[in-house]
């Protein structure tokens, strides 16, 4: 096995212009075999264009796309061994489930017996063995999803592209399908490239996530890297929830930055990202709600003492089971979110309670802006 074989999909310097508008700007990445790779970005960031270039429906203006080490730029879409699950699935309504799956195999010139065997096999693998004779309109949303994947997987693709296929499902089904997709990917052991604007889908399912913004990749990494060690302010803001403040650096020393926010709050944090923070520079500060501890004023302060402490008043309690949160009005009048455990007992924080918020400087991420 050569080094090139280890990557199912490789993009080098890929760009795409639509007139004056640059939809995809110099994107390079490579995906090791058998990984679940997500491209996460807000709508209009160019992720769908990138996927359409990989599938062959658009030609890149510049750059190189290789699959299994071979350039596919001159290969038409129907000859690329890249299959795609469309946003609205695009199952053929005039064919039943069997015919939908058999379509690709017929195009590949498989014999009748082979088609029957492969269709049965792939239906078995998506756990819908009895549905072969069903019509498409008789399937539930989750079943359609699995049939759309089965239709692609029957052809044994090198790479499976998924274009936000969970977008049309209701919340409960979406949660279930997230886990199911991950299991299916494990089972088929094929490289999945998953496009989404939903960060929780990307974080839960992926081995690697690329965060895309305005046509560029901001950062590629494991989900926990993106979450805990974002390289840019965009990634810090887009992945996960954060308290976010604009401010000015007043002091930089010993790997710590002291920032005065626009609202007048002074916080101590650590510099992140490639750009150096100098005193007086504009900075953006991010602190995730789960790293902010909210406690009643009379409780003992945390040991060791946190670098940042703020007193305030509870402005509202956002109850959401295990993910409950309080909104605290700080001394400077700004709202700070902090995760809390709501037990239903008397010690729970309530609206109007005076509280102290503590958080460590190590988790306070400062980016030069």
């Amino acid at each position, binding site marked *: 096995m050569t080094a090139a074989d280890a990557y199912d999909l490789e993009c080098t310097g890929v760009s795409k212009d639509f007139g004056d508008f640059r939809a995809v700007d110099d994107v390079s990445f490579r995906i090791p075999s058998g990984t679940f790779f997500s491209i996460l970005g807000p709508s209009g960031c160019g992720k769908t264009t990138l996927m359409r270039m990989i599938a062959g429906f658009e030609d890149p203006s510049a750059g190189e796309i290789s699959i299994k080490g071979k350039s596919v730029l001159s290969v038409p879409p129907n000859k690329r061994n890249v299959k795609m699950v*469309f946003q609205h699935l695009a199952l*053929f309504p005039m064919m039943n489930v069997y015919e939908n799956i058999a379509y690709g195999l017929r*195009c590949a010139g498989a014999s009748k017996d082979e088609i029957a065997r492969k269709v049965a096999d792939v239906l078995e693998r998506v756990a819908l063995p009895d549905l072969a004779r069903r019509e498409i309109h008789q399937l539930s949303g989750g079943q359609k999803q699995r049939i759309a994947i089965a239709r692609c997987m029957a052809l044994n693709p090198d790479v499976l592209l998924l274009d936000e296929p969970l977008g049309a499902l209701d919340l409960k089904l979406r949660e279930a399908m997230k886990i199911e997709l991950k299991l299916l990917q494990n089972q088929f052991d094929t490289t999945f490239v998953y496009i989404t604007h939903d960060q929780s889908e990307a974080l839960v399912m992926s081995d690697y996530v690329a965060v895309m913004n305005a046509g560029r990749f901001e950062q590629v990494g494991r989900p926990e890297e993106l979450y805990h060690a974002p390289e840019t302010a965009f990634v810090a803001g887009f992945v996960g929830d954060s308290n976010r403040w604009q401010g000015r650096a007043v002091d930089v020393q010993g790997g710590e930055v002291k920032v005065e926010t626009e609202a007048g709050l002074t916080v101590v944090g650590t510099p992140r990202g490639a750009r150096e923070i100098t005193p007086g520079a504009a900075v953006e500060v991010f602190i995730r709600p789960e790293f902010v501890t909210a406690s009643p004023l009379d409780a003992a302060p945390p040991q060791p003492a946190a670098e940042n402490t703020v007193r305030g008043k509870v402005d509202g309690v956002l109850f959401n089971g295990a993910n409950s949160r309080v909104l605290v009005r700080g001394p400077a009048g700004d709202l700070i979110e902090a995760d809390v455990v709501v037990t239903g007992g008397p010690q729970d924080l309530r609206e109007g309670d005076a509280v102290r918020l503590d958080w460590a400087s190590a988790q306070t991420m400062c980016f030069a802006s």
Partner: protein
Amino acid sequence: MSADAKRLSLILLFAPFALWISLLIILPHIGMVALSLREKVAPRVYEFGFGNYIDFINEPIYWNTLLRTGSMSLLVTVLALLIGFPVAYYIAKIAGKRSRGALFLMCLIPLWVSDLIRAFGWILLLRETGVVSSVLIWSGMTTEGIEFLYNDVTVVVGLVYTVILFMIVPLVSTLDGMGDDMIEAGYNLGGNTLTVLRRIIIPYAMPGIVAGCIVVFMLTAGSYLTPILLGGKNSSWFTEQIYDQFITRFNWESGAAFGILLLAFTSFVVWLGLRLSGQSLANTVAKT
């Protein structure tokens, strides 16, 4: 709204339709059937019998005309489909959103002019002293004027031109409902252009194709003006026979029998077409 008011509004809405159907469709047909089953035995003396139908079978020129009308109508239908499908596909799938409306409107414009005027247009173009013939003489490709009228080709061309709109409209509306991702999925799964057309686009558009074909076939087989004006005496169109029996020969009994035969024949062809394409009337009409 009370139940009575609801019923009243239903009756009021339904009344014009019921009147139209019963007075203009059902009643004349009952009359036609009754008329066609009368045999003239002496002046003003009639008796019940199938004589008019037996006459039709015994006279080859009658059923030959019917078969000729049927086969030429099928040819017109096929040509209208072959020409109309690419046009409809272009309008529905390839043209931009803005030009789509304009193109559709351009298809409709010929309908603003009456059948008669359009047929005269063709006559102006194709007669011996017409535009085409004159241009050919002027360019030196021929020395004498050529008569393009009064042959089957002209009749077919004229009919295709008259009815093609009724093929394009249902096709555009079905093709419009097909997402682009359906076609892309067809390619993505390994199909070439021919496979995608044959296995995806045409099956998807089938209700529209069948609906368009039914309308076009019925219109063509029942048309009168175009075959007469462009085909002249040679056109031997079956509607001409019916007109002849009613008006020229004043033989209403025979004319009525021919009318019923034309209806039965075209209905049979449509039924056969539906059977062969595996579509149902409800399916095609409801979907387009």
